[in-house]
């Protein structure tokens, strides 16, 4: 099993490396001169500052050297500095990363808490009304843009009802964005739970369990749910990646002080070093989380444990 885990770790590291390389390449797709584009937004744009930025980014060098330089810097932990205040990108991102994770995990918890029971309900009532209703709701859910839902939530809960604050990053503020994320992605979770459970329910060992005269709720909750949950764990990683993606926009809607909000601001300001830094940090987070979930799966499934 150690062998499997180390393989996954290596794969994760390679993935991050690829992303870093891509991030280094991306700055070169900017039409025209990146420094001009960046500095156009900034008030501190002087010819000297621009020249300095150019040399710092190594823009006089051939492309592949620049990318190599960038990768080298990143691996040493230097993600560059922003054009705005000359602050180190890594520091700024790391300050806000906990916020992002807090929201993401909350959103995930909500999505699972709503989605798994719904999927379960649909699966055991397969073909009947409850199933159809849940599936219809799920299709709707998958079709709703998260940011729209967020705006509606703000409209209803903050402005109309005055229950919850609109923006900010305190613990009270987490409720609406977490709920928005959770509701958006619970549809996906519900669908996947349903199909995992339906597949399990068709297996022979469920028939054996019934043949032993076990009460139906025992059959469902012990014999069916457990193997299904194990397959759902693999899906959770996927859902989490999507959730983090959606979160970038949600952070904007709710003015949540996480890396997503920082990133979008940077994009509007053409702060390329910051954008690159964001891509690297984001990708690393996704990869680390996926890997952890993978390992969790290996532990939970007895078939993998023995190896």
């Amino acid at each position, binding site marked *: 099993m150690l062998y499997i885990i180390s393989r996954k770790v290596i794969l994760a590291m390679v993935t991050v490396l690829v992303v870093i390389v891509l991030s280094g390449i991306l700055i070169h797709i900017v039409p025209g001169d990146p420094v001009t584009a960046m500095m156009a937004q900034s008030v501190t744009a002087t010819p000297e500052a621009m020249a300095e930025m150019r040399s710092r980014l190594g823009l006089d060098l051939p492309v592949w050297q620049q990318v190599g330089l960038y990768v080298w810097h990143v691996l040493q932990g230097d993600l560059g500095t922003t054009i705005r205040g000359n602050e180190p990108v890594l520091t700024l991102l790391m300050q806000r990363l906990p916020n992002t994770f807090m929201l993401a995990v909350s959103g995930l918890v909500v999505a699972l808490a709503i989605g798994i029971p719904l999927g379960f309900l649909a699966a055991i009532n397969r073909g009947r009304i409850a199933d159809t209703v849940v599936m219809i709701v799920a299709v709707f859910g998958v079709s709703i843009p998260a940011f729209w839902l967020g705006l509606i939530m703000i409209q209803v809960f903050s402005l109309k009802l005055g229950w919850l604050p609109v923006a900010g990053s305190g613990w009270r503020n987490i409720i609406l964005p977490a709920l928005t994320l959770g509701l958006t992605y619970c549809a996906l979770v519900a669908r996947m739970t349903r199909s995992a459970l339906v597949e399990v329910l068709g297996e022979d060992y469920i028939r*054996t369990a019934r043949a032993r005269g076990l009460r139906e709720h025992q059959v469902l909750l012990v014999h069916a749910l457990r193997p299904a949950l194990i397959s759902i764990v693999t899906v959770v990683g996927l859902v989490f990646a999507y959730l983090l993606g959606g979160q970038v926009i949600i952070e904007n809607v709710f003015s949540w002080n996480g890396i997503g909000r920082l990133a979008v601001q940077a994009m509007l300001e053409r702060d390329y070093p910051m954008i690159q830094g964001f891509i690297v940090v984001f990708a690393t987070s996704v990869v680390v989380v996926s890997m952890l979930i993978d390992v969790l799966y290996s532990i939970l499934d007895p078939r993998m444990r023995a190896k």
Partner: protein
Amino acid sequence: MDKHPYLRVRDLSVTFDSKRGQFKAVDGVSFDLSQGEILALVGESGSGKSMTSLSIMKLLPEAARLSGQISIDGVDIATKDRRSMEDVRGAKLGMIFQEPMTSLNPVLSIARQMTEGLRRHKALNRQDAMNVARTSLLDVGIADPDRVLSQYPHQLSGGMRQRVMIAAAIALQPAILIADEPTTALDVTVQAQVLDLLVDLKSRLGAGILLITHDIGVVAETADRVAVMRSGRIVETGRVEEVLNVPQHEYTKALLGSHLTVETGLKIRDAENGRVAL
């Protein structure tokens, strides 16, 4: 030996509705099974024998419609609802299936799967249930029950899994055991062991065994009585010696003719490979 039939099946029919009309998987089947005897239900694939066994357990797919009488110990269960069947299954009617690979839950331990039936039906605590499970495993010829109990299905061989299934079923001491092609998925050598086990259980526990199989050889070795099925109907029934030696129905004759040739041929081949002494 109590000759009063514990299981009486009268005019059992299983019908599937489809857009193209009705399909009768089982068509007016009737037989008796007493405790302490082995009745073999033999036929080709699609003859309806598995469906018959599933209908006795009321484990049919939802699309199936059941009609007829099934009485267990004098009580008609054909009309019983799910909750009452849950009491009957396991405790009075045990069943073991064809595929030991997929018939055990891969994520639960053997101990768990063996004791849950006991705790459910006999209200035993964990300790007592484990003891009964241990004894059952010994009864089916597993020498190291504690080790097996702590393992998971994927760690056992096919033969072991089948034994575990049988052990789990007999631990509940059902009066009737239904065995649906219990040896089909196993190696030849293991087959013989499992069949011997079933015969042994018949005499030791006094259970009545309904043995579903397509293999006449198995019938010859194991069963007391036999019922031949074809297209959902029983075409001939009687004591094994009679039916196999003096078959009355054309289909039975054909079945015997083809099977024995194959069976004999296989035996010869196995002997040549040094696997089985002829």
